[in-house]
């Protein structure tokens, strides 16, 4: 993502995290980014902020947990968030409610059909730890991912 767009996306996600809180201003935004993520001139600062605020937004304003699996954490290569998928998942799981929401979402998905599960392919591929194997330690979701990928390869 280009820097200008990256900043715009960070701002939009930050706003949604803070909406409903006492008056928020652009001034607060910049100082918060600087304080938590560092130098505003560096792209990496904004990339870290994007992962944090997008994940935080999904946690605080999650209406249907299944949408996390099917859409919001289901990264397709053509999504502008795709390149930050690992950082976003790391941030998401760092929130105390994160793993619970994933479990609720997986339960909701479990009751629907194979087509719905297929839709979530990007999510399962991510958490199954391939190719980076990042989520091996997180057995709950990693097992789900592996089971899904196994069922896919058996079916084909």
């Amino acid at each position, binding site marked *: 993502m280009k820097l200008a767009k990256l900043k715009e*996306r960070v701002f939009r996600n930050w706003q949604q995290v803070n*909406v*409903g809180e006492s008056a928020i201003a652009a001034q607060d935004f910049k100082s918060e980014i600087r304080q938590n993520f560092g130098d505003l001139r560096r792209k990496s600062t904004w990339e870290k902020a994007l992962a944090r605020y997008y994940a935080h*937004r999904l946690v*605080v304003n999650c*209406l249907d*947990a299944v*949408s996390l699996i099917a*859409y919001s954490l289901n990264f397709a290569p053509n999504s502008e968030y795709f390149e930050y998928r690992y950082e976003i998942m790391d941030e998401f799981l760092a929130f105390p409610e994160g793993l619970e929401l994933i479990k609720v979402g997986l339960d909701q998905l479990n009751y629907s059909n194979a087509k719905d599960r297929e839709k979530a392919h990007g999510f399962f591929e991510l958490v199954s730890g391939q190719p980076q194997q990042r989520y091996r330690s997180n057995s709950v979701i990693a097992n789900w991912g592996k089971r899904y990928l196994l069922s896919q390869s058996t079916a084909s």
Partner: protein
Amino acid sequence: MVNRQFQDAVADAGGSQETHQRVIEVETEVLFDCTVNELYRETGGRKGDRSSLPTAAQTAYMANEVRATHELNAASTSYSHDQDERDGQIVEQVRETSRQTRKWLPW
């Protein structure tokens, strides 16, 4: 089920990944004057599970999403080819539908 169809309509209309979250935020704001977080907190529901919300809230979402699904399906061919504009059009469509639905709600 209705919420799945609604999110499918957002996808079919060409909405980007973030748009799936944006439409939820906008319909909640218009229908209930609060955030999803506040709605769950103030009703004592279990976050991420709308079946734990009061029936009136579930019905409001359902009525709105049936309408919004229909509106998105009808309008999507006229949406912009530019992704950002297209996302904006989807969000605005949902906002407008939600305003209409809000008129029928007793609060």
